[in-house]
């Protein structure tokens, strides 16, 4: 029935001229971040997170200050990445650039270790160990301490700018900034002598790159920890996608047991309470979530598996006398079994399965192989590069001479006396540029601790003692103060005729 008046919908009902602000056409292309103020929670996993956070932060801040005596002239910092001299020190281990394969091995172990942890524990890295998680946790803790818990923080957000708000915000930003500076500051200590650099940083004597590094890391810590938070995980980090792909139906993941909880409802005393599931719809799990999601919506990309919702739900269940673990670490398989009323697999069986055992075996084998190589690796080495221009030189008595650049590497942290000799080349004699000694088959040198000694060596052989073209022979270096020996197979080139 058509109405006669534009302001009347049907007879007796007025039509209002209004348009929905959030109608589909008006929805913004850009979504502003909505504040998430996770509520304080106590419980097993919260305690575990405190412990892990404390240990990780302690490792990060304390490590550069540990000392390790390596003798005179060597750095005494236990863990040091010495970019200037191209050395990496880790307690008793010293790694030279050509031994970088150790780092490659460590990365492979880290990779397989991650497969192992992920296939057993799911996104444990995201929930407990990731620096983003640890620092956000720290920043939220500061925020809670200054501004109060969830509701107080929401109120403060909305309140107009008055003296109290300015004071609280200023203090918060100041403490955040101090944490950020300390974070960026600690990083550079891994690359130089920490006590010396600490003083230099304050007296403005440190290098520009140190200040730039501290500045950049301060800025990223402050912004990521204070403002970006879950946005980093959801939008910037590839890890959630990769980790999700590595999980299977036997990996533990924080799960809402909807077969038990649904239909959710809060009016337990009403007539149809018997129809309701265990979830009392108190929304505590949502309020404590640092990612701002509802775990009851099922598994989600955003969920970092920090298990704070488990703590929240269990504390409520304890208070109301309900059965705990409505939200819990469960494998997909157990969840399905429970939902169908079948018995779930025991945890032992989900942890020890072919896949995890394979990862564990691989991980251990690589680790053992690296340990073996570490304890048997060469600490004395020789490299020889033959001069190629000219290929050979004919001397006045008709003998042939070749030139070699010989590098002797003393990778031990002590001075060593070594013997350089040539073998498998009859009648060959060598001279070394700079020492003015008579030509001989051997030479003694003293190698400085932890240094490469470069020598220009000439080897001369009578024409009749060598074959035309290439002749193979060996340079050897022997430690006269120990047992180590190293060889290098070299070529002596004579005219082709």
């Amino acid at each position, binding site marked *: 029935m058509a109405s006669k008046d534009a302001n009347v919908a049907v007879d007796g009902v007025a039509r209002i001229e209004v348009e929905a602000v959030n109608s589909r056409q008006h929805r913004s292309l850009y*979504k502003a971040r909505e504040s998430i103020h996770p509520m304080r929670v106590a419980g097993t996993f919260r305690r575990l997170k405190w412990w892990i956070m404390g240990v990780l932060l302690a490792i990060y801040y304390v490590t550069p200050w540990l000392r390790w005596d390596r003798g005179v002239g060597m750095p005494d910092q236990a863990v040091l990445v010495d970019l200037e001299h191209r050395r990496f020190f880790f307690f008793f281990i010293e790694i030279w650039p050509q031994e970088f394969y150790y780092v490659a091995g460590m990365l492979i172990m880290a990779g397989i270790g991650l497969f192992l942890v992920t296939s057993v524990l799911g996104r444990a890295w995201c929930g407990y160990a990731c620096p983003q998680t640890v620092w956000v946790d720290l920043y939220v803790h500061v925020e809670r301490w200054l501004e109060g818990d969830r509701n107080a923080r929401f109120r403060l957000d909305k309140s107009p700018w008055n003296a109290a708000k300015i004071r609280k915000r200023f203090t918060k930003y100041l403490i955040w900034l101090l944490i950020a500076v300390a974070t960026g500051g600690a990083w550079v200590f891994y690359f130089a002598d920490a006590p010396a650099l600490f003083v230099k940083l304050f007296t403005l004597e440190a290098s520009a790159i140190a200040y730039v590094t501290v500045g950049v890391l301060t800025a990223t810590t402050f912004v990521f920890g204070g403002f970006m938070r879950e946005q980093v995980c959801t939008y910037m980090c590839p890890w959630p996608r990769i980790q999700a792909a590595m999980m299977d139906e036997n990996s533990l993941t924080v799960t809402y047991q909807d077969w038990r909880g649904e239909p959710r409802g809060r009016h337990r005393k009403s007539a149809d309470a018997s129809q309701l599931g265990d979830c009392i719809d108190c929304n505590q799990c949502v309020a404590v979530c640092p990612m701002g999601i509802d775990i009851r919506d099922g598994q989600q990309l955003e969920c970092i598996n920090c298990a704070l919702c488990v703590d929240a739900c269990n504390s409520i269940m304890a208070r109301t006398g309900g059965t705990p673990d409505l939200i819990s670490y469960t494998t997909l398989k157990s969840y399905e079994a429970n939902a169908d009323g079948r018995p779930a697999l025991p945890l032992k069986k989900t942890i020890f399965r072919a896949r995890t055992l394979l990862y564990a075996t691989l991980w251990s084998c690589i680790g053992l192989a690296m340990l073996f190589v570490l304890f048997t690796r060469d600490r004395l080495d020789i490299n020889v590069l033959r001069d190629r221009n000219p290929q050979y*030189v004919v*001397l006045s008595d008709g003998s042939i001479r070749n030139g070699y650049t010989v590098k002797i590497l003393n990778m031990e942290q002590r001075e060593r006396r070594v013997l350089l000799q040539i073998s498998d080349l009859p009648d060959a004699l060598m001279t070394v540029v700079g020492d003015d000694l008579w030509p001989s088959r051997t030479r003694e040198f003293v190698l400085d601790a932890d240094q490469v000694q470069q020598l220009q060596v000439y080897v001369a052989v009578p024409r009749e003692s060598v074959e035309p073209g290439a002749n193979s022979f060996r340079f050897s270096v022997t430690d006269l103060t120990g047992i180590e020996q190293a060889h290098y197979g070299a070529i002596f080139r004579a005219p082709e005729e």
Partner: protein
Amino acid sequence: MSEKKTDEVTGVDTTGHEWDGIRELDNPLPRWWLWTFLACIVWAFGYMIFYPAVPMVSEATPGVLGYSSRAAVHQDIQDARAAQSEMISKVDSLPLAEIRQDADMLQFAINGGRAAFAVNCSQCHGSGAAGSPGYPNLNDDEWIWGGDLENIATTLRHGIRHPGDDETRFSEMPAFGRDGILDREQVKAVANRVLAFAGQPHDAELAAEGAELYADNCAACHGDAGKGDREQGAPNLADAIWLYGSTEADIARQIHAPRHGVMPAWGDKLDPVTIKQLTIYVHSLGGGE
């Protein structure tokens, strides 16, 4: 294909793009992402103002900081020179023999000498200093004018047969054949005598014939045993090294009408430090005495 739908699970519209049944959700972009994008644009404009950026006809806009990569390289070179100044003044003040005693100084001089050699000397002596016919090999142990540090330095400073330098090394072997001092057969005989000195295959009869001719004409400079004389710049004929070739024909040609190579005097072209570095470099090539 491009059909917009509403995703059932999320309630979000799709963009209408579809790949093998996979549809793209049209979620709003986070606002900070937009801010980051805008900040990058602002940064780009700032960069255009401060650094050379917009290509013009002959060169780009200079930018208010006045930065140029050429000036930066120039500054780097200046800094490198300044960093070397201590070593350079040490090379300048110390005698050659003492420079060789110190491992660091030796390495510094060799590196500097190698660079100077590549620029000034390699055109004739080759990049590996191995020379070529007429241009001596500096790697071997045969030196016409002496191979110790002082002699190499003198040769470098004053050159060989360099017109315009009073102290230049000078020697001139007569053109025995061309000027009619020896006839064709006599030249051949002397050539065989020389081959005999060097222990090379030769005609013994001709060599014996040439012995007297050698003693009369050549021994004054090259010595009775053909060992040469560095004072006069007369090469050693009794070794395995030949500047102009080692066959009978090569030697006969040199007796008939010798060629005389010229090396420039570098003393007035290069600074004393470079000369010293070159000396030590050439001395280190293996033949230094």
